[in-house]
């Protein structure tokens, strides 16, 4: 809501500076969004009257005006076309000062002297931008008078953010009233004198309400014989302060009164209302209306409209129709001041996606008692400004719309909610409460001792319950005066559960492994699946669809983190970052295929990816990142979490290289995948080099994380280590060999480690040489050489039998 300091002062006396005022209002909940000092230096600009206009002898586009400024008549050259003889205008004299232009001097144009300048509204700072012609003043303007006497150019404009529960503050009077409550001063409401003359209103108009629920109150007046003109300077200036553009005197008055009182008004050209009848009804199938913004609109059935006997002439509470618009030829008007149902109004604005100053107020719920005041205020102004004659009588379909709501307020409840009494003296708390409520114009109905009965004012439709009143009391009392306290009780609970602690631990380990954590959007594009080679019908393609996404790229909820990480690698390699090691801990969203109405299964995923496209520094040169680096990271995580008994089997995830693609299995369940990203996928993302990536399903991993540690007694007897090298066929898996060795003597064989692997001509095509170290240890004795040799021999024999190994001596 835009308003100015001087404008507010017309409604409330205050001696605060604009800065102080903004500060006070902000801490009371009316937040200042913007403040602008519009003080301009205007000097030597006076009211003049054009007494003659001639064309410039040389320059066809210019006119030479003779302007009477009371003391003398000045020749002034002007490029505008909108002035006529006898128009009153703002004349910048020789040596005058204008805000944007600076000093104006007499000057010759094509041989003719111009002793000043005729000002446009924008040149005077009355309109933003550039006005099309010069400013025409009202006839009543006093010849020769300094323009600064007509309007106060020094002012400060505020733009306040109004909370949606306070539509009463969407008006100058509303804000002034709030200031009054804060500084304890009385509001000055403009007085109205209605001069009714001529025929009764009923002769010219009949109002029929077909939808009382949607339009519970409809009031109106008829004003005749008006003169449509530009608004007088004072009104234009007020509109400028309120941030509205002047149109003509009638429209300007309805706009001004709306912003002054919070009651939207609409003026119809009475002579264009067919059948002399206003009908408030729902639209019928197939009806259309051309609204004031020049848009021909199809009316969805059941929209609330204002209609005459033939067709809709306005969208109720939103915008008027083009047909009955006020224009230069309008003579008589019907002025509407209604209360429309807020919920219905909201629905309609959504349906038309058309939000106006009027609908913005109706949809939040306006004061149910202000209709007649606003109507009369506008009628009075039309009478004064546009010479209109107010027909006698008015229409008001429901004087008793406002039903006072009595609320009980328990005095003790206030202190209980706020945590303190409003006065050190407990007994004075009640007086203080009553005093605050009085400032807010709440009516005290009865004082029952323990509680009081109060009625909120009509403009405070948001106050319905005891708690609402308590908030009002706290607000005016001042949040700053409420002392901060800390709980007077403690509750014992586990702050962070084991699951979340494990998540933290995983993140710590991954950071320790040198990975940088990323956070990516949960959304993906439908093209993602093709890009990462997920075939049609694959379960990963079953993703949650966003009904109304912002972009196609963000239209699905992801079912895997693979594409998100690849995007980040691409982003970084595109920016010459060669070594990218990243991880993310985030959810995927899997719909339950059989239950479309239930919430999806949200699974926490730990995913990481590494890529090296070019050589790094002197050490990194020797670092080749491959599948065993990602596998190593997974092993480090498992080691950190003390997860054991996991195994790796060949995987079949389509995003990976078909042979470099592993699945991690714990107790028969898949816990994760890792591997080298398929070259086609790499190509789809245009990433240089190879990417190795892993995804661990935290929900499946977590049950395998031990929550406590059991200490094992340290061995008392020495261990013995023996090494063993042999040649086997290439396809034999190391994990199988280790398993086989361990099974020879599960008690005494403590550890089997692969320490060398070699392929080459000496070994032969299709074969590899493996070297393992085997550690033997007994818990109750020192092993003898003979014992170790016996087991070792069995190992060799087994390897020969099972894997056809050629033992190397």
């Amino acid at each position, binding site marked *: 809501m835009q308003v100015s300091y001087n404008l507010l002062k017309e409604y409330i006396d205050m001696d605060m500076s604009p800065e102080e005022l903004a500060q006070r209002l902000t801490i009371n909940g009316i937040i200042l969004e913007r403040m602008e000092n519009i003080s301009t230096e205007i000097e030597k600009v006076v009211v003049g009257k054009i007494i003659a206009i001639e064309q410039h002898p040389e320059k066809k586009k210019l006119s030479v005006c003779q302007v009477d400024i009371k003391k003398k008549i000045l020749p002034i050259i002007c490029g505008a076309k909108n002035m006529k003889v006898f128009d009153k205008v703002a004349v910048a004299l020789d040596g005058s000062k204008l805000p944007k232009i600076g000093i104006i001097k007499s000057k010759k144009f094509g041989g003719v002297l111009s002793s000043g300048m005729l000002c446009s509204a924008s040149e005077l700072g009355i309109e933003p931008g550039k006005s099309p012609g010069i400013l025409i003043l009202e006839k009543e303007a006093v010849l020769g008078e300094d323009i600064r006497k007509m309007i106060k150019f020094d002012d400060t404009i505020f733009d306040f953010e109004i909370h949606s529960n306070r539509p009463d503050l969407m008006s100058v009077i509303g804000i002034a009233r709030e200031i009054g409550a804060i500084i304890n001063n009385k509001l000055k409401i403009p007085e109205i004198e209605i001069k009714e003359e001529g025929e009764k209103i009923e002769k010219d108009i009949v109002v029929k309400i077909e939808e009382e629920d949607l339009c519970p109150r409809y009031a109106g007046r008829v004003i005749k014989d008006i003169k449509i003109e530009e608004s007088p300077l004072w009104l234009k200036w007020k509109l400028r302060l309120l941030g509205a553009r002047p149109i003509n005197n009638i429209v300007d008055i309805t706009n001004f009164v709306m912003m002054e009182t919070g009651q939207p008004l609409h003026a119809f050209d009475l002579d264009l209302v067919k059948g002399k009848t206003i009908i408030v009804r729902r639209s019928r199938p197939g009806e259309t209306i051309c609204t004031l913004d020049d848009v021909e609109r199809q009316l969805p059935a059941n929209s609330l409209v204002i209609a005459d006997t033939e067709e809709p002439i306005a969208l109720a509470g939103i915008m008027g129709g083009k047909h009955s618009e006020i224009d230069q030829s309008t003579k008589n008007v019907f002025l509407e001041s209604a209360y429309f149902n807020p919920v219905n109004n909201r629905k309609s604005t959504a349906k038309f996606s058309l939000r106006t100053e009027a609908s913005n107020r109706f*949809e939040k719920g306006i004061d149910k008692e202000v209709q007649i005041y606003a109507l009369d205020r506008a009628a009075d102004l039309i009478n004064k400004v546009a010479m209109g004659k107010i027909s006698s009588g008015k229409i008001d379909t429901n004087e008793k719309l406002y039903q006072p709501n009595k609320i009980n307020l328990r005095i003790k409840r206030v202190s209980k909610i706020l945590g*303190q009494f409003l006065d050190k003296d407990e007994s004075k708390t009640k007086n203080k409460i009553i005093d605050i409520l009085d400032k807010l114009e709440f009516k005290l109905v009865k004082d029952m001792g323990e509680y009081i009965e109060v009625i909120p004012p009509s403009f405070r439709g948001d106050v319905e319950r005891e708690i609402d009143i308590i908030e009002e009391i706290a607000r005016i009392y001042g949040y700053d005066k*409420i002392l901060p306290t800390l709980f007077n*009780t403690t509750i014992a609970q586990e702050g*962070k559960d084991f699951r979340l602690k494990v998540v933290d631990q995983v993140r710590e380990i991954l*950071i320790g492994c040198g990975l940088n954590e990323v*956070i990516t959007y949960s959304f993906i594009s439908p093209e993602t699946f093709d890009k990462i080679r997920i075939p049609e019908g694959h379960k990963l393609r079953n993703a949650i669809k966003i009904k109304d996404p912002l972009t196609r790229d963000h239209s699905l909820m992801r079912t895997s983190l693979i594409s998100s990480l690849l995007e980040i690698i691409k982003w970084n390699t595109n*920016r010459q970052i060669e070594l990218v090691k990243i991880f993310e801990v985030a959810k995927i969203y899997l719909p339950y295929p059989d239950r479309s*109405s239930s919430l999806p299964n949200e699974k926490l995923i730990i995913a990481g990816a590494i890529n090296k496209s070019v050589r790094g520094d002197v050490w990194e040169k020797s670092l080749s990142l491959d599948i065993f680096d990602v596998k190593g990271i997974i092993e480090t995580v498992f080691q950190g979490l003390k997860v054991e008994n996991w195994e790796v089997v060949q995987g079949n995830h389509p995003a990976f290289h078909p042979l470099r693609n592993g699945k991690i299995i714990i107790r028969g369940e898949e816990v994760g995948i890792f591997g080298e990203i398929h070259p086609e996928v790499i190509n789809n993302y245009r990433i240089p080099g190879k990417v190795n990536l892993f995804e661990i399903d935290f929900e499946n991993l977590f049950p395998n994380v031990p929550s406590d540690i059991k200490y094992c007694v340290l061995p008392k007897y020495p261990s013995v280590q023996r090494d063993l090298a042999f040649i086997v066929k290439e396809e034999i898996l190391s994990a199988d060999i280790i398993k086989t060795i361990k099974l020879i003597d599960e008690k005494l064989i403590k550890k089997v480690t692969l320490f060398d692997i070699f392929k080459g001509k000496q070994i032969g095509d299709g074969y590899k040489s493996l070297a393992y170290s085997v550690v033997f240890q007994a818990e109750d004795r020192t092993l003898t050489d003979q014992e170790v040799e016996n087991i070792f021999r069995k190992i060799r024999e087994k390897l020969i039998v099972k894997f056809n190994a050629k033992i190397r001596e």
Partner: protein
Amino acid sequence: MENKIKGVKKEIVSKLNLVKDLKDIEKLRVEYLGRKGIVTLLLRKLGSFSAEERPKAGQLLNQSKREIEELLKIKEIEIEKLEKEKRLQGEGIDLTLPGRKLDRGTAHPINLVLKEIEEIFLSLGFKIEEGPEVELDYYNFEALNIPKDHPARDDQDSFYINKEILLRTHTSPVEIRVMEKQQPPIRMITIGRCYRRDAADSTHAPMFHQIEGLAVDKDITFGDLKGVLTVFVHRIFGKDRKVRFRPAYFPFTEPSAEVDVSCLLCHGRGCRACGYTGWLEIMGSGETDPAVFKMVGYDPEKYSSFAFGMGAERIAMLKYGINDIRLFFENDLRFLKQF
């Protein structure tokens, strides 16, 4: 005899001064103390001394032998030390070569901030709760006193999946879920991703992180809200920050308060960052509206409560001086590695 011995000692001292390496010392040792060495020969001559002279000369000779041994030893240590030093001099390396580091990674700045916030509330006895991101309209809006057609829904333009399911626009639904399943006292925070239909620009992102807190008990007051949140602001932004509570409107709290902290850049004097107000808005808060209690079946006469919520991105932007929210989601390593 005495003179002879003294002469030998003098001789050896001057020879030692000329010694260059351990070999020279060994040579001297053989020359004087070896089987045919000068001192050894002298000792052998002892037999030719008279019985009276013999003990004295023997004593003198033996003492001199020890002294010579000592001198040789000292010189030997000295030379050894010099030689070791010389050897080390040859082992120079370029210390400016890069270290072979393990290259620790980094936590995402949002998680860094979340962690810090989490720690503060954990220390105040709050528990961490979790809830779904794809949420029912009921929990996201209706149970929070935001029925369909409520104007507050405009401020939280949502991504809907279907009529009843949407991406949560705030973390508040977790509060409802917790209150539904347990009785007071409650002291909880919840942290997570939220979604609003905002096109990305320097201050908006369609996805962001929120931290939400709730305390329900028999005597929770507005004073407690102020106390707890003041402690929070002081810990996260520093003790010298001023905190301001300003009336606000949220459908699910009453009274409601917006929490401001004195501007981190201008210290309250007013600058562009704070819109020349000297204050930065950091979170919303309030006492839970009785209407919300009714939805979860709590008796508002018996219990009271306060709740608060803030955006992690905003806190991180203020804390680290980041001026574009998109940086958090671009994940440029040059950005991430700064944290």
